[in-house]
Protein backbone atom coordinates (compact mmCIF):
# COMPACT_ATOMS: atom_id res chain seq x y z
CA UNK A 1 0.00 0.00 0.00
CA UNK A 2 1.42 3.40 -0.88
CA UNK A 3 0.34 6.85 0.22
CA UNK A 4 -0.23 9.98 -1.86
CA UNK A 5 3.51 10.43 -2.44
CA UNK A 6 3.38 7.35 -4.73
CA UNK A 7 6.99 6.50 -3.92
CA UNK A 8 6.39 2.82 -4.65
CA UNK A 9 5.41 3.69 -8.24
CA UNK A 10 8.75 5.32 -9.06
CA UNK A 11 11.43 3.39 -10.99
CA UNK A 12 13.76 3.93 -8.04
CA UNK A 13 15.62 1.28 -6.07
CA UNK A 14 15.93 1.16 -2.28
CA UNK A 15 19.49 2.39 -2.61
CA UNK A 16 18.35 5.30 -4.80
CA UNK A 17 15.65 6.31 -2.34
CA UNK A 18 18.14 6.29 0.51
CA UNK A 19 20.51 8.41 -1.56
CA UNK A 20 17.77 10.94 -2.38
CA UNK A 21 16.34 11.10 1.15
CA UNK A 22 19.79 11.46 2.73
CA UNK A 23 20.78 14.18 0.28
CA UNK A 24 17.52 16.07 0.85
CA UNK A 25 17.88 15.86 4.61
CA UNK A 26 21.49 17.02 4.45
CA UNK A 27 20.63 20.02 2.25
CA UNK A 28 17.46 21.00 4.08
CA UNK A 29 18.65 20.87 7.67
CA UNK A 30 21.10 23.81 7.57
CA UNK A 31 18.67 25.99 5.62
CA UNK A 32 15.48 25.35 7.61
CA UNK A 33 16.23 28.22 9.95
CA UNK A 34 12.66 28.97 11.02
CA UNK A 35 12.45 25.53 12.63
CA UNK A 36 15.45 26.39 14.78
CA UNK A 37 13.68 29.42 16.21
CA UNK A 38 9.93 28.85 16.43
CA UNK A 39 7.74 26.30 18.23
CA UNK A 40 7.20 23.34 15.90
CA UNK A 41 4.08 21.24 16.32
CA UNK A 42 3.51 17.99 14.46
CA UNK A 43 3.78 16.44 11.99
CA UNK A 44 0.03 15.91 12.22
CA UNK A 45 -0.39 14.10 8.91
CA UNK A 46 -1.32 14.86 5.31
CA UNK A 47 -5.01 14.79 6.29
CA UNK A 48 -4.56 17.78 8.61
CA UNK A 49 -6.27 20.76 6.96
CA UNK A 50 -6.25 23.68 9.35
CA UNK A 51 -4.71 25.18 12.47
CA UNK A 52 -7.08 26.04 15.29
CA UNK A 53 -7.01 29.73 16.26
CA UNK A 54 -9.67 29.52 18.97
CA UNK A 55 -11.42 32.49 17.38
CA UNK A 56 -14.89 32.96 15.96
CA UNK A 57 -16.70 35.47 13.80
CA UNK A 58 -20.37 36.25 13.70
CA UNK A 59 -22.42 34.74 10.90
CA UNK A 60 -24.55 37.69 9.70
CA UNK A 61 -27.61 35.70 8.67
CA UNK A 62 -29.33 32.64 10.16
CA UNK A 63 -31.68 30.04 8.67
CA UNK A 64 -34.55 31.19 10.89
CA UNK A 65 -35.41 33.83 13.50
CA UNK A 66 -34.48 33.41 17.15
CA UNK A 67 -31.04 31.88 16.71
CA UNK A 68 -27.56 33.31 16.44
CA UNK A 69 -24.47 31.76 14.90
CA UNK A 70 -20.72 32.02 15.21
CA UNK A 71 -18.27 30.50 12.76
CA UNK A 72 -14.85 29.19 13.77
CA UNK A 73 -11.84 30.93 12.28
CA UNK A 74 -9.02 28.60 11.34
CA UNK A 75 -5.73 28.92 9.52
CA UNK A 76 -5.71 26.53 6.54
CA UNK A 77 -2.49 24.61 6.00
CA UNK A 78 -0.68 25.39 2.77
CA UNK A 79 0.83 22.63 0.62
CA UNK A 80 4.23 23.70 -0.68
CA UNK A 81 5.96 21.74 -3.40
CA UNK A 82 9.29 22.05 -5.26
CA UNK A 83 9.62 19.78 -8.28
CA UNK A 84 12.89 18.43 -9.67
CA UNK A 85 14.22 15.89 -12.16
CA UNK A 86 16.89 13.27 -11.62
CA UNK A 87 18.70 11.48 -14.45
CA UNK A 88 17.91 7.76 -14.47
CA UNK A 89 21.46 7.10 -15.67
CA UNK A 90 22.74 8.76 -12.48
CA UNK A 91 20.47 6.54 -10.41
CA UNK A 92 21.71 3.44 -12.21
CA UNK A 93 25.27 4.53 -11.49
CA UNK A 94 24.33 4.87 -7.81
CA UNK A 95 23.12 1.27 -7.91
CA UNK A 96 26.51 0.28 -9.32
CA UNK A 97 28.21 1.92 -6.37
CA UNK A 98 29.06 5.37 -7.74
CA UNK A 99 29.54 7.84 -4.89
CA UNK A 100 29.28 11.08 -6.86
CA UNK A 101 25.75 11.07 -8.28
CA UNK A 102 24.65 14.42 -9.73
CA UNK A 103 21.81 15.54 -7.49
CA UNK A 104 22.05 19.26 -8.14
CA UNK A 105 18.38 19.57 -9.12
CA UNK A 106 17.40 18.08 -5.75
CA UNK A 107 19.77 20.46 -3.96
CA UNK A 108 18.20 23.44 -5.72
CA UNK A 109 14.67 22.26 -4.89
CA UNK A 110 15.66 21.70 -1.24
CA UNK A 111 17.05 25.21 -0.96
CA UNK A 112 13.96 26.70 -2.61
CA UNK A 113 11.49 25.00 -0.31
CA UNK A 114 13.57 25.92 2.76
CA UNK A 115 13.64 29.54 1.63
CA UNK A 116 9.88 29.42 1.04
CA UNK A 117 9.32 28.15 4.60
CA UNK A 118 11.66 30.73 6.13
CA UNK A 119 10.15 33.55 4.10
CA UNK A 120 6.60 32.59 5.04
CA UNK A 121 7.52 32.50 8.73
CA UNK A 122 9.50 35.73 8.82
CA UNK A 123 7.90 37.88 6.12
CA UNK A 124 4.48 36.30 5.75
CA UNK A 125 2.58 34.96 2.79
CA UNK A 126 -0.63 36.92 2.25
CA UNK A 127 -2.13 34.56 -0.34
CA UNK A 128 -1.67 31.65 2.07
CA UNK A 129 -3.12 33.66 5.01
CA UNK A 130 0.21 33.62 6.86
CA UNK A 131 1.35 36.74 8.73
CA UNK A 132 5.11 36.80 9.27
CA UNK A 133 7.14 37.66 12.35
CA UNK A 134 8.94 40.65 10.81
CA UNK A 135 5.77 42.04 9.24
CA UNK A 136 3.64 41.75 12.35
CA UNK A 137 5.94 43.16 15.01
CA UNK A 138 5.43 46.72 16.21
CA UNK A 139 9.19 46.97 16.89
CA UNK A 140 11.55 48.07 14.12
CA UNK A 141 15.11 49.33 14.23
CA UNK A 142 17.81 50.01 11.65
CA UNK A 143 20.55 47.40 11.42
CA UNK A 144 22.81 49.48 9.20
CA UNK A 145 25.36 48.18 6.72
CA UNK A 146 28.54 48.14 8.82
CA UNK A 147 28.70 44.79 10.67
CA UNK A 148 31.01 46.11 13.41
CA UNK A 149 28.14 48.36 14.52
CA UNK A 150 25.63 45.47 14.73
CA UNK A 151 26.00 45.03 18.51
CA UNK A 152 24.31 48.40 19.07
CA UNK A 153 20.99 47.67 17.27
CA UNK A 154 20.98 44.08 18.57
CA UNK A 155 21.44 45.31 22.15
CA UNK A 156 18.74 47.95 21.54
CA UNK A 157 16.41 45.23 20.26
CA UNK A 158 17.01 43.12 23.38
CA UNK A 159 16.33 46.17 25.52
CA UNK A 160 13.13 46.85 23.54
CA UNK A 161 11.93 43.28 24.19
CA UNK A 162 12.79 43.51 27.90
CA UNK A 163 10.90 46.80 28.12
CA UNK A 164 7.88 45.10 26.57
CA UNK A 165 7.97 42.38 29.21
CA UNK A 166 9.27 39.75 26.78
CA UNK A 167 11.77 37.51 28.53
CA UNK A 168 14.70 35.72 26.90
CA UNK A 169 16.79 34.02 25.86
CA UNK A 170 16.81 35.82 22.54
CA UNK A 171 17.84 34.63 19.10
CA UNK A 172 19.09 36.48 16.04
CA UNK A 173 17.91 35.39 12.60
CA UNK A 174 20.28 36.85 10.02
CA UNK A 175 19.72 37.04 6.27
CA UNK A 176 22.42 35.39 4.15
CA UNK A 177 24.36 38.57 3.46
CA UNK A 178 24.24 39.78 7.05
CA UNK A 179 25.28 36.36 8.39
CA UNK A 180 28.31 36.29 6.12
CA UNK A 181 29.33 39.75 7.32
CA UNK A 182 29.01 38.74 10.96
CA UNK A 183 31.12 35.59 10.71
CA UNK A 184 33.81 37.47 8.77
CA UNK A 185 34.08 40.34 11.21
CA UNK A 186 36.28 40.78 14.22
CA UNK A 187 35.89 43.90 16.31
CA UNK A 188 38.67 46.11 17.63
CA UNK A 189 41.03 43.89 19.56
CA UNK A 190 40.19 40.88 17.37
CA UNK A 191 37.14 39.73 19.36
CA UNK A 192 34.83 37.82 16.99
CA UNK A 193 31.57 39.68 16.35
CA UNK A 194 29.64 36.40 16.40
CA UNK A 195 30.67 35.80 20.01
CA UNK A 196 29.92 39.37 21.08
CA UNK A 197 26.40 39.14 19.62
CA UNK A 198 25.92 35.74 21.26
CA UNK A 199 26.70 37.24 24.67
CA UNK A 200 24.16 40.04 24.14
CA UNK A 201 21.45 37.61 23.08
CA UNK A 202 22.15 34.62 25.35
CA UNK A 203 20.74 32.55 22.47
CA UNK A 204 21.46 31.28 18.97
CA UNK A 205 22.52 33.25 15.90
CA UNK A 206 21.06 31.53 12.87
CA UNK A 207 21.77 31.79 9.14
CA UNK A 208 18.30 32.34 7.71
CA UNK A 209 18.13 32.31 3.91
CA UNK A 210 15.05 34.23 2.84
CA UNK A 211 15.19 36.81 5.62
CA UNK A 212 15.75 40.41 4.63
CA UNK A 213 17.94 42.12 7.22
CA UNK A 214 17.64 40.46 10.62
CA UNK A 215 15.16 39.64 13.36
CA UNK A 216 15.77 39.47 17.11
CA UNK A 217 13.19 37.23 18.76
CA UNK A 218 12.43 35.66 22.10
CA UNK A 219 13.08 31.95 22.57
CA UNK A 220 10.94 31.64 25.73
CA UNK A 221 8.33 29.68 23.71
CA UNK A 222 4.64 30.14 22.99
CA UNK A 223 5.06 33.21 20.78
CA UNK A 224 5.62 31.79 17.30
CA UNK A 225 3.72 28.64 16.34
CA UNK A 226 4.52 26.47 13.33
CA UNK A 227 2.09 23.65 12.64
CA UNK A 228 3.24 20.87 10.35
CA UNK A 229 0.75 18.62 8.59
CA UNK A 230 2.96 16.48 6.41
CA UNK A 231 6.61 17.11 7.13
CA UNK A 232 9.02 17.48 4.25
CA UNK A 233 8.92 14.40 2.03
CA UNK A 234 9.95 13.36 -1.45
CA UNK A 235 7.15 12.20 -3.74
CA UNK A 236 6.97 10.80 -7.25
CA UNK A 237 5.38 12.55 -10.25
CA UNK A 238 6.27 10.56 -13.39
CA UNK A 239 9.19 9.40 -15.50
CA UNK A 240 10.38 8.81 -19.07
CA UNK A 241 13.35 6.81 -20.32
CA UNK A 242 15.77 9.59 -19.40
CA UNK A 243 14.59 11.18 -16.17
CA UNK A 244 12.38 10.61 -13.18
CA UNK A 245 10.38 13.60 -11.96
CA UNK A 246 10.04 13.98 -8.23
CA UNK A 247 9.08 16.69 -5.77
CA UNK A 248 9.75 17.85 -2.26
CA UNK A 249 6.56 18.66 -0.41
CA UNK A 250 5.24 19.70 2.96
CA UNK A 251 2.06 21.15 4.41
CA UNK A 252 2.16 23.73 7.17
CA UNK A 253 0.80 26.91 8.62
CA UNK A 254 2.26 29.50 10.92
CA UNK A 255 0.75 31.84 13.48
CA UNK A 256 2.31 34.65 15.50
CA UNK A 257 0.72 34.62 18.95
CA UNK A 258 2.80 37.51 20.34
CA UNK A 259 3.79 40.00 17.62
CA UNK A 260 5.73 42.14 20.13
CA UNK A 261 8.06 39.21 20.96
CA UNK A 262 10.32 40.10 18.00
CA UNK A 263 12.18 43.13 16.69
CA UNK A 264 12.76 43.64 12.99
CA UNK A 265 16.18 45.02 12.09
CA UNK A 266 16.07 46.68 8.67
CA UNK A 267 19.21 46.41 6.57
Amino acid sequence: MSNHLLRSRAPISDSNWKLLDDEARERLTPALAARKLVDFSGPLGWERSAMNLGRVEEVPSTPCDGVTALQRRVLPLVEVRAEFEISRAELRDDDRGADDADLEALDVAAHRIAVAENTAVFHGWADASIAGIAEGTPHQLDLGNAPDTYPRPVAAAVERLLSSGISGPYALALGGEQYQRVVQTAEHGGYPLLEHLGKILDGPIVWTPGVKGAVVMSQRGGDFLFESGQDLSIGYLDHDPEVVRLYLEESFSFHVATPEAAVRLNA
Partner: protein
Amino acid sequence: MGFDQYHEPPEELPPAARTFARLCASLTEEAEAIGWYEQRLAVETDPEALAVMRDAQGEEFKHFSMDLEFLLRRTSSWRAIAQGVLFQAGDIVEHGEEAEAEALEGDDDDDGGSGGYTNDGTGSLGIGSLKGATR
Protein backbone atom coordinates in the same frame (compact mmCIF):
# COMPACT_ATOMS: atom_id res chain seq x y z
CA MET B 1 25.42 12.41 38.33
CA GLY B 2 24.88 9.71 35.74
CA PHE B 3 23.80 10.03 32.13
CA ASP B 4 22.51 6.51 31.67
CA GLN B 5 19.85 7.45 29.15
CA TYR B 6 22.57 7.83 26.53
CA HIS B 7 23.78 4.72 24.80
CA GLU B 8 26.23 6.67 22.64
CA PRO B 9 28.64 9.44 23.76
CA PRO B 10 26.32 12.43 24.47
CA GLU B 11 28.74 14.89 22.87
CA GLU B 12 28.38 13.03 19.58
CA LEU B 13 24.57 13.15 19.65
CA PRO B 14 22.62 16.03 18.07
CA PRO B 15 20.30 17.99 20.43
CA ALA B 16 17.17 16.35 19.03
CA ALA B 17 18.57 12.87 19.71
CA ARG B 18 19.44 13.87 23.29
CA THR B 19 15.94 15.21 23.86
CA PHE B 20 14.48 12.03 22.39
CA ALA B 21 16.64 9.91 24.71
CA ARG B 22 15.57 11.93 27.76
CA LEU B 23 11.92 11.45 26.96
CA CYS B 24 12.43 7.73 26.33
CA ALA B 25 14.08 7.46 29.76
CA SER B 26 11.22 9.41 31.31
CA LEU B 27 8.66 7.14 29.61
CA THR B 28 10.41 4.09 31.07
CA GLU B 29 10.45 5.60 34.55
CA GLU B 30 6.75 6.44 34.41
CA ALA B 31 5.89 2.91 33.26
CA GLU B 32 7.97 1.51 36.10
CA ALA B 33 6.21 3.73 38.63
CA ILE B 34 2.79 2.66 37.31
CA GLY B 35 3.80 -0.96 37.83
CA TRP B 36 5.06 -0.28 41.36
CA TYR B 37 1.83 1.48 42.34
CA GLU B 38 -0.16 -1.41 40.89
CA GLN B 39 1.71 -3.80 43.19
CA ARG B 40 1.32 -1.53 46.24
CA LEU B 41 -2.41 -1.15 45.56
CA ALA B 42 -2.76 -4.91 45.30
CA VAL B 43 -1.46 -5.47 48.83
CA GLU B 44 -2.55 -2.33 50.72
CA THR B 45 -5.61 -2.61 52.99
CA ASP B 46 -5.81 0.89 54.52
CA PRO B 47 -8.53 2.72 52.51
CA GLU B 48 -6.90 6.14 53.01
CA ALA B 49 -3.53 4.89 51.82
CA LEU B 50 -5.25 3.27 48.85
CA ALA B 51 -6.87 6.58 47.90
CA VAL B 52 -3.55 8.41 48.08
CA MET B 53 -1.79 5.82 45.97
CA ARG B 54 -4.59 5.68 43.39
CA ASP B 55 -4.23 9.44 43.01
CA ALA B 56 -0.45 9.09 42.69
CA GLN B 57 -0.79 6.38 40.08
CA GLY B 58 -3.15 8.65 38.14
CA GLU B 59 -0.34 11.22 37.98
CA GLU B 60 1.96 8.59 36.52
CA PHE B 61 -0.67 7.70 33.90
CA LYS B 62 -0.71 11.34 32.89
CA HIS B 63 3.09 11.62 32.78
CA PHE B 64 3.41 8.42 30.76
CA SER B 65 0.79 9.62 28.27
CA MET B 66 2.47 13.00 27.84
CA ASP B 67 5.88 11.41 27.27
CA LEU B 68 4.39 9.01 24.77
CA GLU B 69 2.56 11.73 22.86
CA PHE B 70 5.76 13.79 22.61
CA LEU B 71 7.73 10.85 21.26
CA LEU B 72 5.01 9.90 18.78
CA ARG B 73 4.91 13.47 17.47
CA ARG B 74 8.63 13.32 16.78
CA THR B 75 8.67 9.84 15.18
CA SER B 76 6.26 9.53 12.30
CA SER B 77 6.74 5.78 11.77
CA TRP B 78 6.15 5.07 15.48
CA ARG B 79 3.11 7.33 15.32
CA ALA B 80 1.77 5.53 12.23
CA ILE B 81 2.07 2.15 13.97
CA ALA B 82 0.58 3.46 17.22
CA GLN B 83 -2.43 4.80 15.32
CA GLY B 84 -3.11 1.30 14.05
CA VAL B 85 -2.80 -0.29 17.49
CA LEU B 86 -4.01 2.15 20.16
CA PHE B 87 -7.71 2.47 21.00
CA GLN B 88 -8.69 -0.18 18.44
CA ALA B 89 -11.13 -2.93 19.37
CA GLY B 90 -10.22 -6.49 18.42
CA ASP B 91 -7.03 -8.51 18.27
CA ILE B 92 -4.08 -6.45 19.50
CA VAL B 93 -1.41 -8.60 17.87
CA GLU B 94 -3.25 -8.60 14.55
CA HIS B 95 -3.58 -4.80 14.63
CA GLY B 96 0.11 -4.55 15.49
CA GLU B 97 1.19 -6.72 12.58
CA GLU B 98 -1.05 -4.85 10.15
CA ALA B 99 0.04 -1.43 11.37
CA GLU B 100 3.70 -2.39 11.16
CA ALA B 101 3.28 -3.77 7.65
CA GLU B 102 1.50 -0.62 6.48
CA ALA B 103 3.89 1.78 8.14
CA LEU B 104 7.22 0.14 7.45
CA GLU B 105 6.72 -2.05 4.43
CA GLY B 106 4.00 -0.22 2.51
CA ASP B 107 6.33 1.57 0.13
CA ASP B 108 8.12 -1.62 -0.78
CA ASP B 109 5.16 -3.59 -2.06
CA ASP B 110 5.95 -2.96 -5.68
CA ASP B 111 9.66 -3.43 -5.26
CA GLY B 112 9.54 -7.14 -4.65
CA GLY B 113 10.02 -6.89 -0.90
CA SER B 114 13.79 -6.62 -1.10
CA GLY B 115 13.94 -5.88 2.63
CA GLY B 116 16.13 -2.91 1.86
CA TYR B 117 15.72 0.79 2.53
CA THR B 118 12.47 2.31 3.75
CA ASN B 119 12.58 5.79 5.19
CA ASP B 120 9.83 5.61 7.79
CA GLY B 121 6.81 4.29 5.98
CA THR B 122 5.13 7.68 5.63
CA GLY B 123 7.68 9.03 3.15
CA SER B 124 8.65 11.81 5.54
CA LEU B 125 12.29 12.80 5.81
CA GLY B 126 11.70 13.02 9.56
CA ILE B 127 13.24 16.46 10.02
CA GLY B 128 10.68 17.94 12.41
CA SER B 129 11.72 20.56 14.94
CA LEU B 130 15.29 21.83 14.76
CA LYS B 131 15.09 24.00 17.88
CA GLY B 132 18.39 23.83 19.67
CA ALA B 133 20.37 23.37 16.45
CA THR B 134 22.18 26.47 15.20
CA ARG B 135 23.77 25.01 12.08
